[in-house]
């Protein structure tokens, strides 16, 4: 595997008597889209904030492209959208991106601003003031802002929380485009279906600890085929979609009447609920 863009080792953070993170290990490789899941207060935002230098860890280390998180080199390589963010109400989308280009030292100019606004489908809102935008538009502008300067790592904390289904689709397509461009993304989200749909890797945190990690397919439990017959519902554990015709044929041959066939998986939601043990923040 290529050297990770974000590497977190034994990371811990304590706020007074509260342990927010307790020895978390996590890596995000180039072009990898990692979903970070967990109940409220699990430590997801703290981990993201440590990665971009907003919060100092109590122990362990976090590195971006091999440089300590929070160092100028690390900050230059990342883009970040906070869960709770605000942009100056009086400035336009165009002005905000221009300001961030100057902060990021981006030489992209007008072309970059135009491309980013088009990417988040705000091309027509370049001259619109932030105060005149809906929360969803502001969130998409936030994603565009995070992409200024073509970062190698994108840290997104609940980037779709204020978006309607169309807005979510726009961000989803954008994330897929970023994957094609080899941008590493760490995505904090409560939307399990969204994470399942687009992430290559999922990490579940609960109580400040990493309780489960892997690809969505790995995490999902063994499949099963469920058949409703005249003598009741029969479950064929371990069977996959391709086994369904054979199972039905065998049941019919054995004289059973088949009324319904369903191919079942253990969903990410099942895995998540199992991992966090019903915790909620």
């Amino acid at each position, binding site marked *: 595997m290529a050297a990770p863009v974000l590497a977190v080792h034994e990371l811990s953070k304590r*706020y007074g008597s509260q342990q927010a993170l307790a020895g978390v290990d996590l890596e995000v490789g180039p072009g990898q889209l990692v979903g970070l899941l967990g109940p409220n207060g699990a430590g997801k935002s703290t981990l993201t*904030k440590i990665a*971009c*230098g*907003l*919060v*100092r860890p109590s122990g362990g280390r976090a590195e971006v492209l091999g440089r300590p998180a929070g160092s*100028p080199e690390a*900050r*230059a390589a*990342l883009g*970040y*959208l*906070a869960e*709770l*963010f*605000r*942009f*100056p109400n*009086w*400035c336009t989308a165009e*002005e905000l991106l221009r*300001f*961030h280009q*100057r*902060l*990021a*030292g981006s030489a992209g100019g007008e072309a970059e601003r135009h491309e980013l606004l088009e990417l988040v489908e705000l091309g027509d809102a370049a001259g619109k003031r932030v105060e005149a935008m809906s929360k969803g538009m502001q969130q998409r502008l*936030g994603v565009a*802002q*995070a992409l200024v300067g073509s970062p190698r790592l994108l840290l997104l904390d609940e980037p779709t929380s204020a978006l309607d289904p169309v807005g979510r689709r726009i961000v989803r397509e954008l994330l897929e485009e970023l994957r094609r461009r080899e941008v590493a993304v760490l995505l904090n989200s409560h939307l399990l279906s969204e994470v399942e749909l687009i992430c290559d890797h999922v990490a579940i945190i609960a109580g400040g600890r990493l309780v489960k990690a892997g690809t969505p397919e790995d995490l999902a439990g063994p499949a099963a085929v469920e058949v409703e017959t005249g003598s009741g519902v029969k479950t064929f554990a371990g069977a996959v979609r391709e086994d369904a015709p054979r199972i039905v044929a065998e049941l019919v041959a054995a004289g059973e009447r088949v009324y319904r066939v369903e191919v079942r998986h253990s969903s990410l939601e099942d895995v998540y609920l199992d991992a966090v043990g019903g915790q909620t923040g």
Partner: protein
Amino acid sequence: MNGAQLRSAAAVVGLSIQEGLRRRVFLAVLVLTAGFLALFALGAHFAFRDVDEFANGVPGVLDAHAFTGATIFGLAMFATLFLGAVLAVFLTLGVVRGDAESGLLQPIVVRPIGRTTMLLARFAGAASLSAAYVVVVYLASCAITEATGNWSPDHLLGPALGLALGVAIIAALSLLASAVLSVTAQGIVVFMVFGAGLTAGLMAQIGNAINSDSLHSIGRVASWALPFEGLYAASLHALISGTSGLTGVVLQLGPFGGSEAAGPGLVAWAFAYLLGVLALAAFVFSRRDL
């Protein structure tokens, strides 16, 4: 600080100025200042006219014209310092904790600019605007007393620079307060500190007048602890440093704060104090989780 950081700092200063323009802060300040100067001009006109009529042909040990000019200009100095302090505080209001709590700060400080450069840029923006403001209002007040009463201070530029450095110190104190306090608490604390400084100056002057060494010492120590007051007292003193006799003595007890000559090292101390406050603010900010 490298070139990239300087460009980023310039962007932050530019954003602060743009914000002031867009939010019509400067327009409001301009209108209020024009109102103050118009009222000041009217007051100065009548004060000089009436005192000249009153003192006309009456020989006295008190130079009524100089007394009026210095007193009314002292009022202008006090108002200028107050308005400059208000501007400095409002331009730095919530710069650290307030902006962090509202989510305005995080997108900026994760950029390579870094926290210290960001803080210094915000200070540079607020301090330069506030300092420029007090110098302009001071010079406008000078022009008014010259035009209405043919009176001008004994030293022209020294007091203006003293006031400018004073408001820069207030901006730095406000920035430090913003790193540890909520927005409301920051505003309250900085204005209380400002009031305490001016009160300390008056205490020192009262101690001097009633020959109380203890009171004078307490006042002087307090005003050195808050050197914007020492600079203000020195600026007031410089206005009348060439005025002698009873007029000079009475004017030193002026109603708008005690005047006192700048002791040796006051300006150097004020600059060191300013740097110390900024360093402390940067240190507190660098340790803060956002």
